């Protein structure tokens, strides 16, 4: 049996340790020159210098809100880790890694107080050393500016503990608090007055910002004093927001040597000029939530299940991603990348779907109200077209129509209101505490999931995130997914794989399943 103290220590460290490495104590990580996660692939011989110019088809939806591109919230894309660092980073295998935090642990079993130890000797771009005061000011600013709802919901206060320690106090137990701090917006910046903090583009990241036009692009140069010694390899980094077609043009004309989030159906345009495609294991999922507040056919769980079973997700992977059998979903926000994922027995089963429809009194099929979406990724219209077609094969007719983002909000509000049309949303891959937490119906939400199963789900979710034992928690996560699957309040229509294209000379550039967790520290260019 482990002592309580041992357990807590393990809990904290366990997340630091990557899958293959042995348990490393905080001191060992600090002693080493580089954290283990920053190790290069075997046989790599990185070169220094060069410039990476990338195109990005997925702009930050918030950039139009403000003209200040030096603010990480309004950074042109979600790849904020080019300029800034957060306390925590989620690696390609969805493991927690310390970024500016060297170690962390809950103070006790209540899971409401968390202690973080910061890396020492980290310098901001302006030459100042990062201390606990900066971290505290940054976190407070993020809370004040509503940087992430995952934080605000639990946050009570944060205090400095010496020069390199900070302590979070939460208003409820939250076993997976560090995950929330890995969000791309929660950058650590130099402390400043509330109106000035976060506005100057100064971070601790691998590149220093030179110029940003946050509607178009940015230019940054190597941070010579980067805390990750010897990194980055690139001299310069530039990024531009472009649409899918412009990205192809830019790549083929040699202006871009990398393009993030390419439309998979255009991969041939990159490959035919020698481009190399890198696919992440997963990516965002297109979720259809089916509100239950009106007397509509899908209030019958059999029909909701039938719809889910009738979506031919493999066709999407075959046609759009040219990669059959590679992706799974189970109608929660969980994706197959999560260790805690619990797959549905048979994700595509039109026969069962038809049987369920017949049982529910629709032997000859049914018509569903139209659904609209504003495409986030260039391939989404193609995915939705395939979804509608595969549903049609099972006798379910639904018009899934692209709505340009303009006017879309108003439209959805108008038709959604109390009536409850289905709404499509985009869900990013995250850990179960966040993924499943989003299924909990908010009290003020008019069109949320309701009923005994929803209540059961909400109360079990509360227990799960207060559970210190990881194994038990995983069990509860499985249980939560079963509850969702038994009632099917939402459907996953399909998932995407983040794909990037790069020139052959670009090395070690990988597509991250969490689009926003991509980083440029390890990339180099063979000249």
């Amino acid at each position, binding site marked *: 049996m482990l002592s309580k103290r041992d357990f807590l220590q393990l809990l904290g460290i366990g997340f630091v340790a990557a899958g293959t490495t042995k348990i490393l104590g905080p001191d060992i990580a600090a002693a080493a020159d580089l954290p283990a996660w920053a190790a290069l692939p075997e046989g790599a011989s990185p070169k220094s210098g060069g410039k990476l110019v990338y195109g990005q088809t997925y702009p930050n939806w918030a950039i139009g809100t403000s003209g200040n591109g030096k603010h990480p919230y309004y950074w042109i894309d979600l790849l904020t880790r080019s300029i800034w660092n957060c306390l925590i980073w989620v690696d390609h295998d969805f493991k927690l890694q310390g970024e500016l935090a060297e170690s962390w642990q809950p103070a006790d079993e209540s899971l409401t107080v968390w202690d973080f130890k910061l890396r020492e000797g980290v310098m901001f771009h302006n030459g100042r050393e990062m201390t606990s005061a900066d971290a505290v000011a940054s976190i407070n600013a993020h809370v004040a500016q509503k940087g992430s709802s995952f934080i605000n919901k639990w946050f009570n206060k944060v205090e400095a503990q010496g020069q390199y320690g900070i302590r979070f106090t939460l208003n409820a137990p939250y076993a997976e608090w560090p995950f929330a701090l890995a969000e791309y917006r929660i950058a650590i910046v130099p402390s400043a007055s509330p109106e000035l903090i976060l506005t100057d583009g100064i971070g601790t990241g691998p590149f220093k910002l030179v110029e940003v036009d946050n509607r178009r692009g940015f230019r940054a140069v190597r941070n010579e004093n980067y805390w990750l010694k010897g990194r980055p390899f690139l001299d310069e980094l530039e990024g531009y927001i472009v649409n*899918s*077609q412009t990205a192809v043009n830019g790549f083929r004309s040699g202006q871009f040597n990398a393009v993030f989030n390419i439309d998979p159906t255009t991969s041939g345009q990159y490959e*035919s000029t020698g481009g190399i495609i890198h696919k992440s294991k997963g990516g965002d999922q297109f979720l259809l939530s089916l509100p239950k507040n009106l007397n509509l056919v899908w209030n019958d769980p059999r029909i909701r299940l039938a719809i889910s079973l009738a979506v031919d997700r493999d066709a999407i992977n075959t*046609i759009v991603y040219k990669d059959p059998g590679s992706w799974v979903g189970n109608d929660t926000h969980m994706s197959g990348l999560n260790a805690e994922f619990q797959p549905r027995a048979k994700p595509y089963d039109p026969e069962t779907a038809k049987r369920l429809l017949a049982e529910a009194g629709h032997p000859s099929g049914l018509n569903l109200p139209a659904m609209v979406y504003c495409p986030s990724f*260039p391939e989404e219209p193609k995915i939705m077209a395939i979804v509608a077609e595969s549903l049609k094969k099972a006798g379910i007719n639904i018009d899934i129509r692209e709505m340009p983002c303009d006017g879309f909000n108003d439209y959805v509000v108008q038709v959604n209101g109390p009536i409850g049309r289905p709404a499509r949303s985009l869900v990013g891959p995250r850990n179960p505490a966040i993924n499943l937490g989003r299924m909990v119906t908010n009290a003020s939400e008019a069109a949320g999931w309701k009923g005994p199963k929803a209540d059961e789900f909400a109360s079990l979710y509360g227990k799960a995130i207060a559970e210190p034992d990881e194994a038990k928690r995983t069990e509860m996560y499985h249980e939560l997914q079963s509850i969702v699957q038994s009632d099917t309040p939402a459907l996953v229509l399909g998932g995407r794989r983040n794909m990037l294209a790069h020139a052959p000379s670009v090395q070690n550039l990988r597509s991250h399943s969490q689009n926003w967790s991509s980083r440029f520290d390890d990339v180099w260019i063979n000249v």
Partner: protein
Amino acid sequence: MADISHPSAFPSAMRKLKSPALRRALSEPATVFGLVLVAIHLFLAVFGPWIATHDTSALVGDPMQIPSWDFLMGTDQIGRDYFSRIINGGRIALMVSFFGVSLALFVGTALGITAGYIGGRVDEIIMRIVDAMMSIPELILIAILTLALGKDVLALIPVIAIVYTWGAIRVIRAKTISLSMLDFVRAAELRGESRWAIIAREIFPNLTGILGVELAVRISSAVLRISALSFLGLGISQPTPDWGLMVQEAMGVVFTDPWFLLLPALMLSSLIVGVNFMVDGLSRAFGISSSELG
């Protein structure tokens, strides 16, 4: 229309034509070319569903197939029949344009005649509103209107109508003024005909030629406008086929499969060329001066 394009029927049909103006028009190859193009487009718009039998949204085969007997223009990036999408791509835009422009011409004629014949304050108020509306670039006006009227294919009809009304008022008003200067209007006034009788009996019949020209020209320009809107994401939306959208989609594969771009572009272009040749030829033959056309 259809048998005009038939080569052997052409000369005999010519001889039978009573109207010398029409005969004059049909003696010009450019006019006939325009008429044939327009006829083909009309034919496809009306009978499209019977020619292209594939469902425009159905996944009928593997993506990016080359043309075959089953799929005359191959399949698109997700395996839909491209021929069906090309044929149907114009129908919706044409229909929206037709209804929108007809509405615009109806209102434009009413207001244009009022402004031109009644004159005075009414004219002044109408024309100042016209000036103001026409000083907002079309695209910005459409954007504001879609903001107000919502985003729907049917909502595009009033949008097109509102955008095209003002030009129509100008053209009709100018023509009405030049008509009401003529002495047959004086003669009617001396007979004591009412204003409405003069408008209906004396002025309106002389506007029909210009209205026909306006209808054709504005519809083709509206189709172009709608495709531009769709291209920008403000017009017709997926999965409905539209030439502008198809051009946009095709740009993603233009380097390996350029015909996906060429086909919708050619459809758009042939419609515009056809209408222009037709209208130029007919208005030359029927003596409508080009300066009267907006």
